[in-house]
């Protein structure tokens, strides 16, 4: 019985099947909102109102010819999509929506998720490095430069609710407002929420932070040489990363997904969609900034803002208001 349960957990919910299904739906939502904000229709024909379009895109890519450049390191070139997909899917297992055992919910799992979410960036850099093309190299180095810009503010922002809740466990952080009744802590953390949103946007490499894969500058960035199945895996990884990232932000800043399995799932859908909608607005409202500008922006504004938020939370904790 328990083996079946674990298999269900890993493969169906909240494992691979749910993650890929829901994340493609989120991609559709993002594309649709982005299109409507630009006075376009967006996906329209595949499925109801184009809902199956992201799935169709991935299936199409899976069936395309898969080319490996002659100069590329064959093994590493093929391994990178798998590595990045595996790491984000694993990170998704820790999102506290349905608790199984202490294996997926333990003290310190927020740090594990944050680190698992950093792996795709390194995989992307290595993918660019091993493809041996000027655009891939340029895109790969941009991925790393950008990582150094956003990663610290991202961690600091995630840390704030953890300190507030006095726990390193995602489930405990999410349950804190429910358990203590201190709902006012959510609006207090609005600075950290904004920082987390912007750094998540940078992690997902979307406008205004889509510098590594800026189409007009470096063609496809690190993915320039990728095609077929490997590109499809990278696409799926990007979608799942968007789901896991927004679920993580919704979990720590928007009160999590408590209240049992069904209510939890409903909350998961509503809250992650809300975060994705905010990300779409940011995407539609900006131009792409330069690599030197994101480093300056992160360290001049985002990092100090998250430190200020951290101090505010520490002061609240010290005053004893959040007991």
């Amino acid at each position: 019985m328990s083996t079946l349960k674990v298999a269900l957990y890993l493969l169906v919910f909240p494992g691979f099947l749910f993650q890929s299904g829901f994340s493609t739906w989120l991609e559709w939502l993002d594309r649709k909102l982005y299109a409507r904000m630009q006075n376009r229709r967006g996906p329209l024909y595949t499925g109801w109102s184009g809902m199956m379009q992201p799935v169709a895109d991935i299936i199409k890519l899976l069936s395309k010819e898969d080319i490996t450049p002659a100069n590329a390191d064959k093994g590493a070139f093929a391994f990178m999509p798998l590595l990045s997909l595996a790491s984000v899917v694993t990170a998704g297992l820790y999102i506290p929506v349905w608790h199984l055992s202490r294996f997926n919910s333990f003290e310190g799992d927020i740090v594990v998720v944050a680190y698992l979410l950093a792996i795709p960036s390194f995989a992307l850099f290595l993918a660019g490095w091993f493809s041996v093309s000027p655009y891939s190299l340029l895109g790969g180095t941009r991925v790393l430069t950008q990582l150094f810009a956003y990663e610290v503010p991202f961690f600091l922002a995630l840390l704030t609710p953890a300190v507030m809740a006095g726990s390193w466990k995602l489930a405990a952080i999410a349950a804190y407002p429910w358990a203590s009744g201190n709902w006012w802590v959510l609006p207090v953390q609005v600075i950290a929420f904004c920082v987390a949103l912007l750094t998540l946007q940078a992690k997902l490499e979307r406008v205004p932070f889509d510098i590594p894969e800026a189409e007009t500058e470096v063609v496809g960035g690190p993915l320039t040489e990728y095609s077929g199945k490997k590109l499809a895996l990278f696409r799926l990884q990007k979608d799942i990363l968007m789901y896991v990232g927004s679920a993580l932000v919704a979990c720590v800043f928007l009160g999590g997904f408590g209240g049992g399995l069904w209510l939890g799932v409903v909350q998961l859908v509503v809250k992650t969609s809300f975060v994705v909608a905010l990300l779409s607005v940011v995407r539609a409202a900006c131009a792409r900034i330069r690599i030197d500008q994101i480093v300056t922006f992160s360290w001049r504004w985002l990092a100090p803002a998250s430190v200020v938020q951290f101090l505010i939370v520490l002061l609240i904790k010290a005053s004893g208001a959040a007991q």
Partner: protein
Amino acid sequence: MPETIHLPMGPQHPFLKEPVKFDFDIQGEEIVGARMNIGYNHRGLEKLCEDRNYYQCMYILERICGICSHSHTTAFCQATEKLLGLEVPKRGLYLRTLVCELERLHSHLLWLGVAAHEVGFDTLFMLVWRDRELVMDPLEEISGNRVNYAFNTIGGVRRDLSEEQRKKILAILQPLIDRLEYYANIGSNEPSFEARIRGVGKLSKEHAIEMCTVGPFARASGVDRDSRRDAPHAAYPDLEFKVITNEECDVFGRVLVRVLEMVESCKMIKQILDALPEGEFVAPKVMRRVPAGTAISYYEAPRGEDIHYVRSNGSEKPERVKVRAPTLANLEAACESVVGSLVADIPIAIASIDPCYSCTDRTTIALTDRRRGRRVTTWGELRQYGIDWYRRNRGAHF
């Protein structure tokens, strides 16, 4: 010192709308050297004109460029009219100018969208192109076509403007001016957009004059030049307009110059429609044979000064037609202006001249007859060379 990497961009690259080759030397993200090569799009249209009569030439020259098609025919018509000594009726000149200004509007709007896309601001791109339809509709209404209008003819224009069409054009002007003010506001106040265009692609005034730049590209470097004022043609002497210049010398200045120029165009269209003279719109009798001689005509196309040179030998066909499109004058300066900036600035710095490679493409083949030591190749030999080349390299037989 980081290693210098060679970064080829083109002939096929997402930032290019047409084929052209750029070679950059980069150290990290910084550009230390830039070279370019054109000639991927050469169609030999100038040569084709020598086989056609003057009316047929217009349809060929119209197809030099899809965006400024009216510019090339106007420049050619003016040169031919000069050779013929033809007086164009006032109404014809006014209508010709009307289409010129509508074309300038749609070309600048198109450019603004492309520029926004180059810096990843796709929302602005989509919205600008939606508003461009405001201008495309009247153009279709007047001429029947959205891009190649076929509106000019030697001695005037081919269609008249009805009162109903006049009212329709007047109706779009105010909404368009409102939208343009909104875009000028976005260009100067949207922080991420401004961060990408301010201080990018610097070209000093002295350098702009030295490199013979033309059009909005030169005017954004503070060069106060505009053929509409300096070499009066069409109905421009009768119209009141400001020549927009800007001292910013960067892409930011070029955006502002173009947007404000569009506002000026709207005002000029209003003047034209208010003062449209009555009478004929095309000269009644035009000779098919053009007297021998040469003529040069200047015309301020949306991208800058367009020059046509026509030489006639007294027959029905021109002996030589030579086109100097504005992109050719600007391209080298734009390519040079990216040295010292970052890789991310390449697309917008190059796009800031509103490049049109199909207008500008030309090719030079230096053929020297090594055996006989002659420097000149006869037409027959050139033809034979072409046939041999295709047989050898493409397996084609003629």
